[in-house]
């Protein structure tokens, strides 16, 4: 019955198809994992030459790392949120409120040393409130955090009666301006960067080595399926927004220690955008379920290198805005392109 021109099927063809398919998947995974690292390297090398060799100096690299630190911490929290398919627009405001709270506590004679946990816990509190509204009242993350972006900013101003709070003798100021000396006189890393790296490392452990981590990816990949598989989706959501808030609080503490001061109006303005940009540049998908914390680190470094390099090469402040904006759009375009080839059908 089969027409005479239908070639006999070779079992090998099916197997070959499968092998080639996984090979393609593997290269795609590698591209996803390496992601923006080549871009970062190219930017560094490019700026090095454009700035007549000033980029790769110990001092400048230290500045880049220090500049990247706070954004890296915020972006780490943002990575948790975006992997679940959500967004946290309120991190800049939470950072300001936490820094204010920390500075006010630091000025109290007896409790001064507690300013650091106070700042972090303030952030955690706001994050948990965000998470509860999203997980328990089932409100959209965008709306909830857009609301708290404004509301928490207001609270931050309220805390200091809309003034700048100074404390030149703030305890632990070393974390803001000191460096960890690795090789005396040659190599030292700012404490801010050490904290940021630790945050990245712990985030990686949580995301990749714990049950909770897998559940975070699962909730982002398919929330209804996660619920049916017995995952407590509400708990996962409260956790990720809690982490984002907590890390925003830590970011606030880092800023406060660095500046010896905080201002509810100006501190952390539009930091959420830099954090989101870093996450998206790092290959984490806006749709949820896909992403890596190392990508986020690379993304945050790209932003810092871009700022630093543009200043070194003498590009005007105005053009820096334009270029950074185009980078955000390019990143989202990349996200779309990546999704096209993914297994999602």
């Amino acid at each position, binding site marked *: *019955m089969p*027409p005479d021109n239908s070639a006999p099927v070779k079992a090998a063809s099916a197997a070959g198809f499968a092998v080639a398919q996984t090979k393609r998947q593997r290269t795609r995974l590698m591209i996803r994992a390496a992601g923006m690292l080549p871009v970062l390297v190219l930017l560094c090398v490019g700026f090095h030459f454009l700035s007549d060799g000033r980029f790769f100096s110990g001092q400048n690299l230290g500045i880049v790392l220090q500049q990247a630190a706070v954004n890296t911490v915020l972006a780490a929290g943002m990575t948790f949120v975006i992997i679940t398919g959500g967004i946290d627009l309120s991190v800049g405001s939470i950072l300001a409120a936490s820094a204010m709270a920390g500075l006010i506590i630091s000025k109290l004679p007896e409790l001064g040393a507690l300013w650091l946990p106070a700042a972090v816990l303030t952030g955690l509190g706001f994050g948990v409130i965000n998470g509860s509204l999203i997980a328990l009242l089932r409100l959209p993350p965008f709306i909830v955090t857009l609301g708290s972006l404004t509301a928490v900013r207001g609270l931050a101003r309220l805390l200091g009666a809309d003034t700048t709070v100074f404390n030149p003798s703030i305890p632990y100021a070393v974390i803001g301006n000191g460096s960890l000396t690795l090789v005396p006189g040659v190599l030292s890393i700012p404490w801010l960067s050490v904290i940021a790296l630790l945050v990245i490392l712990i985030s990686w452990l949580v995301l990749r080595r714990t*049950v909770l981590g897998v559940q975070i990816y*699962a909730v982002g990949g398919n929330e209804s399926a*996660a619920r049916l598989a017995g995952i407590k989706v509400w708990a996962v959501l409260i956790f990720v927004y809690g982490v984002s808030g907590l890390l925003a609080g830590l970011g606030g503490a880092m800023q406060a220690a660095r500046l010896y001061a905080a201002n509810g109006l100006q501190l952390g303005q539009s930091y959420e955008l830099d954090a989101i940009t870093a996450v998206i540049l790092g290959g984490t998908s806006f749709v949820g379920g896909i992403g890596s914390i190392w990508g986020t680190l690379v993304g945050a470094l790209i932003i810092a290198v871009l700022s630093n390099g543009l200043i070194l090469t003498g590009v005007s402040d105005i053009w820096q805005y334009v270029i950074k904006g185009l980078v955000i759009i390019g990143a989202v375009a990349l996200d779309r392109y990546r999704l096209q080839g993914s297994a999602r059908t």
Partner: protein
Amino acid sequence: MFCEHRSWFLKIDQLPRRGELRFSVACAAALLFNESTRADVAHKTRVTKRLPSSARGGEKGTMSDPILQMRRVSKSFFGIKALRNVDLTVYPGEIHALMGENGAGKSTLMKILSGAYTPDPGGEIRIEGKVVHIDGPLGGRAAGISIIYQELSLAPNLSVAENIYLGREISQFGLLARDSMRAGVGPILKRLGADFSPSSLVAHLSMGQRQLVEIARALHARSKILIMDEPTTALSAGESERLFSLVRQLRAEGLAIIYISHRMDEVYALGDRVTVLRDGTLVGSLDKPQIRADTIVRLMVGREVSSFYKKDHDPRARSGAAVLAAVDVGDGQRVKGCSLTVYSGEVVGLAGLIGAGRTELAHLIIGASPRTSGHIEIDGRAVNIRTPGEALDAGIAYLTEDRKSLGLFLDMSCLDNINLSVLGQDAKLRSILDRNKARERADIAFATLSIRAADVGVAAGGLSGGNQQKVLLSRLLATAPKVLILDEPTRGVDVGAKSEIYSIIDNLAKSGTAILVISSDLPEIIGICDRVIIMRAGRIEGELRRTATSPLNQEDIMALATGVEQLDAS
């Protein structure tokens, strides 16, 4: 071998008319529906016998010229051939069934005809004898080909008329001419026997009515070839039946219909010719008289499937203790006071029409939606199940009917998919992943369920339907459930994997698991179940038991599912 298949079908039929074997096979499917369909099939069989399509090519006259000829059409992706040298000829006034396992190349072929893919150079496509090049999504429509996809492509917030005119709107002075669009659509809807108006909003229509809109859209575009991809998956039995008679009407009007389906009964009921694809190659075309289950299955899988349904377990071999009992369970809307019991080592079918509330009942049992009445007992003790997580803790695992949106995590690896529900209990200190154990579980699952993928690390979304289903099943089995509720366990699964899933179910029953199978595929329920519970309109309507003397039969089940007997009595 052949005899075994024949007996399988006779079992379904339950009306062995030995003189007319083929005929009765064709009717077996029609029994699902009603007498008129059966008569219709009989009529058609006779007609096509007089006019065997193999002879048509040689005849003269317009009817016998092929409308579509594909010659040596191939398609490769990055050097991998998804379709190789396919020759397909379709005549007007013919229902041409296209079958094949998942990944056999059906959708690639379809996408070439719709213009979504460009075929490799070397082949040619002729429509009414003229070579055509189908470019872009509008190319197919321009060439007279319309495709109705499984997931209908209608805009729900637009009216029927607007949907039909989508992309070809009539405008006057730059404004939409709604009235003339409605007027243009009216006659076509009337011809199709539609019971809704051109101005109805698509969102308010049932799935069957939406399909009608799609067909109207194709007719309105003056398509000569209509491709339907598994059109009945979302339809109830009544709606499917209406669709069948409509498809036959369209055939009588001279349309060529390419009908893609996994369901044998539909192919028997409708197909004038069956073409089978396997691994991208056309392995055979059968004319009406040759259409037989064993032949098709053999062509599709490339080997004999020795026994399709497997039921070796014997519920009486076990202690027969009640494992799952649902008592008076209801949600106040779609499920009303349902009680059922499943015993250890028993496979119980839950049959009923689409919309009878079977899936909803399962969701109530596992706590996926809130109960308003009743309670659940496990091993005779009442348990309070409020979430699917608590159901898993109580030993009830549920396989969803909607694998892709409610079951799998397509971007995650098979390994993670398999381990997801047991991560907590395997973990060190209840929180740190035990990666060796996870790997081991995934490897064992791959081996015992013969999941075919290059590696446990491959994303689940890249697997075929059957392998995806097995991955999902592995996740449930990892929890070592006492009760397994399987909702449409073989939907969208190819023939070979279906058979494997049946034997997995059989083995689980042997090991004492209590299994509840929800299925709309009656031959499947009859083939694997010890007992069938039938639901209708949210209530449990009755129960049929398989005994040594009287096996289960489709007519009894359908009578309870549709409530025909009650109508007769009144």
